[in-house]
């Protein structure tokens, strides 16, 4: 406990340096802007800015990214409440009751509750991160290659299960991502793989152009394919921002529950902030004495999900800091930034670089505080960004992506990769493929390969020696349960209900 207190104090000493405060502020502003803009989420912003973090030190880069992530969660709620447009996926649920509240003239109260709830959740999430990451990192120091292989595989499988969409398509994306990581010189044998004699390919396919193409350029292409609709923005006055006593009383317990729920959901692989909002909304509706108000402007329906998505961000950082494994695409970007700075994430990171870990934790507190101060008075300004025409904004984003990729290696091949993966990403989205599994596989892939080869070496070539270890077996069982349970439910559900009386009626019901 004493150690935690000292670490946190040290973290504040670092994070309160003017340069880091500046990075936190920039991150918070950029995050809010990307949260406000529909289409460009925190992932896109991180991908675009990934290369520019090279001009900073690792701590600065982490602080900037944390600010972007939290800022996007705040910003997303603004457009959901005022315009019924979710700025990013985690704000979809907020639209339901937030927009209804705005229609009833309580937009200010909804925004204030969402900001205060987010602040509360951010703080709870950070507290959880602090304790959970330290504990998990301590345990992870005893892990061998077999355990890391199991964690990597289990993480990818859970991600496939929770991302949604077709299972087969997600598996294909994971395998393509893993295949891309095998390009280049094999680090164990020094033999070139899939390089086709190209010197540039022998260094492997960089994560950066692929991520920026698939998330940045593909996002732009998806945005420009639709007709532009400029939104008329409602003005919110400062004095309208104060919720009444009844609204406070109803929203704060919901925000607290959302915070706890969000943190634990954040630990699970997949789009945890999005899942957290849905789970919180359903939970609040079930717990409410007036469930009929949900969908018509229930303040709990804004406070709970908004808190949950912010808290899930803290949870998502736990596996990254403790195990070095990102469970969400946004965390893959954070990992990418760490790797660009020559840092190897994993259980040793907290031990070897405690200043970085604690500075990031402290900056999250500071960032949350900045966001609450920034967001409420500047709501009208941020919303006005929506009025910048798409035909001006989108070429700017493309140009930033291009310069960003070029600035890292000054490589022509990287620029081609950016363009190719941009188009491929757009095309794959159109046919229903998800990009997240590919990116995560690209990040976790090398770790899975190294761990498996090392584990097989240690076990004398016995696969049983890799699988039947207590932690590994538990993880594999957990992963297989995610397939067995839905299958079992599918089989037993009709049997429980009995045979359908009228097949026509049965077919009609989903539409109803």
């Amino acid at each position, binding site marked *: 406990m004493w150690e935690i207190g000292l670490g946190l104090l040290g973290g504040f000493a670092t994070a309160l340096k003017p340069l880091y405060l500046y990075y936190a502020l920039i991150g918070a502003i950029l995050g809010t802007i990307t949260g406000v803009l529909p289409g460009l989420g925190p992932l896109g912003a991180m991908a675009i800015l990934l290369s520019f973090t090279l001009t900073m030190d690792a701590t600065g880069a982490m602080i900037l990214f944390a600010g972007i992530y939290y800022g996007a969660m705040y910003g997303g709620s603004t457009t959901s409440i005022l315009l019924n447009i979710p700025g990013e996926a985690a704000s979809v649920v907020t639209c339901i009751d937030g927009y209804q509240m705005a229609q009833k003239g309580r937009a200010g109260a909804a925004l204030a509750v969402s900001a205060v709830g987010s602040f509360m959740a951010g703080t709870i999430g950070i507290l959880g991160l602090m304790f959970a990451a330290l504990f998990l990192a301590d345990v992870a120091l005893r892990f061998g290659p077999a355990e890391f292989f199991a964690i990597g595989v289990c993480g990818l499988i859970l991600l496939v299960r929770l991302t949604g969409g077709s299972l087969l*398509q997600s598996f294909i994306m994971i395998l393509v991502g893993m295949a891309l990581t095998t390009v280049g010189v094999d680090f164990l044998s020094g033999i070139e793989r899939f390089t086709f004699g190209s010197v540039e390919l022998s260094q492997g396919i960089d994560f950066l152009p692929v991520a920026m193409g698939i998330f940045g350029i593909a996002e732009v292409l998806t945005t420009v394919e639709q007709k532009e609709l400029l939104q008329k923005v409602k003005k919110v006055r400062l004095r309208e921002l104060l919720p009444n006593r009844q609204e406070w009383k109803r929203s704060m317990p919901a925000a607290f529950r959302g915070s706890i729920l969000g943190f634990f959901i954040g630990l699970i692989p997949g789009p945890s902030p999005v899942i957290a909002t849905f789970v919180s909304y359903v939970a609040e509706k079930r717990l409410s004495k007036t469930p009929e108000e949900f969908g018509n402007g229930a303040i709990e329906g804004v406070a709970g999900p908004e808190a949950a998505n912010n808290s899930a961000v803290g949870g998502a950082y736990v596996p990254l800091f403790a195990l070095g494994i990102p469970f969400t695409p946004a965390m893959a970007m954070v990992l990418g930034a760490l790797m660009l700075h020559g840092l190897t994430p994993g259980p040793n990171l907290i031990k070897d670089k405690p200043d970085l870990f604690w500075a990031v934790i402290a900056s999250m507190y500071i960032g949350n505080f900045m966001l609450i101060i920034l967001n409420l008075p500047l709501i009208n300004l941020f919303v006005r960004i929506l009025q910048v025409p798409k035909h001006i904004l989108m070429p700017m984003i493309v140009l930033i992506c291009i310069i960003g990729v070029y600035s890292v290696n000054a490589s022509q091949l990287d620029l081609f990769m950016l363009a190719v993966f941009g188009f491929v990403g757009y095309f794959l989205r159109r046919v229903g493929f998800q990009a997240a599994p590919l990116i995560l596989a690209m990040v976790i892939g090398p770790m899975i390969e190294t761990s498996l080869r090392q584990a097989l070496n240690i076990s004398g070539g016995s696969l049983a020696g890799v699988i039947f270890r207590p932690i590994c077996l538990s993880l594999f069982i957990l992963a297989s349960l995610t397939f067995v349970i839905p299958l079992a439910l599918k089989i037993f559900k009709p049997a429980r209900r009995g045979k359908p009386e009228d097949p026509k009626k049965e077919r009609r019901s989903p539409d109803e």
Partner: protein
Amino acid sequence: MEGRSRVNEKITAAILLVFSLLYFFKGLSLQVGVPKNPGPGFIPFIIGILLVSCTGFYIVRVFRKGDLGGKGEKTSEDEKKNYVAILGITACAVLFPLILETLKFLITTFVVSFFMFLALKPKKRAFALFLAAGMSVASFLIFSRLLGVALPMGFLETFFFRLGG
């Protein structure tokens, strides 16, 4: 006539299968090794087999779905999409690395930005020219001077670099 999305699905499935087969057969030339001492081709071999199986299964599913009832699905949504903008922006992203070393940063950025603006708003040519010029100079000053990014320099860049102080 088949729906455009169904055609896209078929194209994607075919490309993925070709990629998988290429990856698998190229991977066979690498040394797989034995379980006790896996070689550089061990993981590519496993990935290759899984990829070919999954993409094979996917292509069968897509083509079977097409035969059963995926006809006549051309939606009005497909027609509304701004294909000129999509292809224009992709072409500009490909064009940038091709001309960067020859034309250097400022002219390349100007040309690429101009075509991107044009792809999105074809009627506003003068506006696109003005915006592209402003954006190329601004981006050069921001990235090269403020952020210290090493960009390809010609006489124009040197002039602006000096102008910036």
